[in-house]
């Protein structure tokens, strides 16, 4: 199977992040790990794109980022742990609904059962 990357993921990244965080708080690398695991290794994100998306979500109040208190030996650098907020959970539900509708409408056009 071909990899899903770049443009095909654009527009869905924020909802995917919210969905990943609904499984529990996580830092950037862990979010990517969960996305890759959920995509059975077929999702290829440019990793730098994750953080602008996280900052947009944070500015919108849909996730909340908190610095780790300790750097755990990473030479002064600390990770930021992200948590889904109530607003983020509501946004995720809306996004899931939109996705179901998208698939329901486009599925028959592609000749694929939704």
């Amino acid at each position: 199977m071909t990899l899903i990357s770049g443009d095909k993921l654009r527009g869905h990244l924020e909802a995917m992040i919210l969905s990943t965080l609904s499984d529990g708080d996580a830092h950037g690398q862990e979010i990517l790990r969960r996305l890759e695991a959920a995509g059975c290794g077929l999702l290829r994100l440019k990793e730098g794109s994750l953080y602008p998306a996280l900052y947009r979500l944070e500015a919108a109040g849909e996730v909340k980022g908190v610095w780790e208190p300790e750097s755990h030996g990473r030479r002064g650098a600390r990770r930021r742990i992200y948590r889904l907020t109530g607003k983020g959970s509501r946004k995720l539900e809306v996004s899931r609904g939109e996705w179901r509708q998208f698939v329901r409408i486009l599925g028959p056009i592609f000749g694929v059962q939704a």
Partner: protein
Amino acid sequence: MTDTNLTQLKVLVERIVRPVRASLRTKRKVREELLVHVSGVFEEEFARLGDDRGALAQTTVRLGDPAEVTAQLQKSVSAGDDFRRYWEGEPGEPAWRTAARVAGGTAALAAVVLGIMLAATGGTRGWPLAALLAGVGAALAVPAYFFALTLFTAWMERVCHGPLGWSWRRVVVAAAGLWLFTLLCMAGANRPAWQSRIPVTEAMTAGLISAHFVVFACALGTSSTKRAIYQREWAGLDIA
């Protein structure tokens, strides 16, 4: 991870972060977060490939096109950050410019407070002339004081952490200057009450409060120095 590897990873991060128009605080957050991320990716790739150069090349690929990430980061910077960026000023700007900005901000705040007080008491007619003059005088004096305080803070920063190194004599002169200046300002503000005689208790209290401003200026100078050192470290990376 060797120091050289860490520097190379910092360069990767700085290529993305430096062109972003954002406050130092925002950039610092992004730098720290991206650095810990690329360090993790590098270690993963190094464990897989067993080779520094290969791991670095793979980390670069996984991070994506720096210009694209920069553009995405720029879009994620909030409008409120512009105000923070203005307030922080440019790195290495002259002290008088910082002082002018602080004075401007304080003047705006003082004008708003004065306006609220006037509005709450039914305008200028409700105020005796002396009280009105005192209010306007305070609204003008406070920004002037903060202008001078910022300059004193910059002076403290230079004498404590400047290129000439620590010297007790210069530190004592700067601290005494700031203490005396604050004390004189407080005496000026209390002039009507202190005209006939200077109450000892109040003068001692003013002296103690003034001393706190010296400590405050030292703390501010130290934190500003740390910020400047951090800024120099990242600005010194060659990202070409």
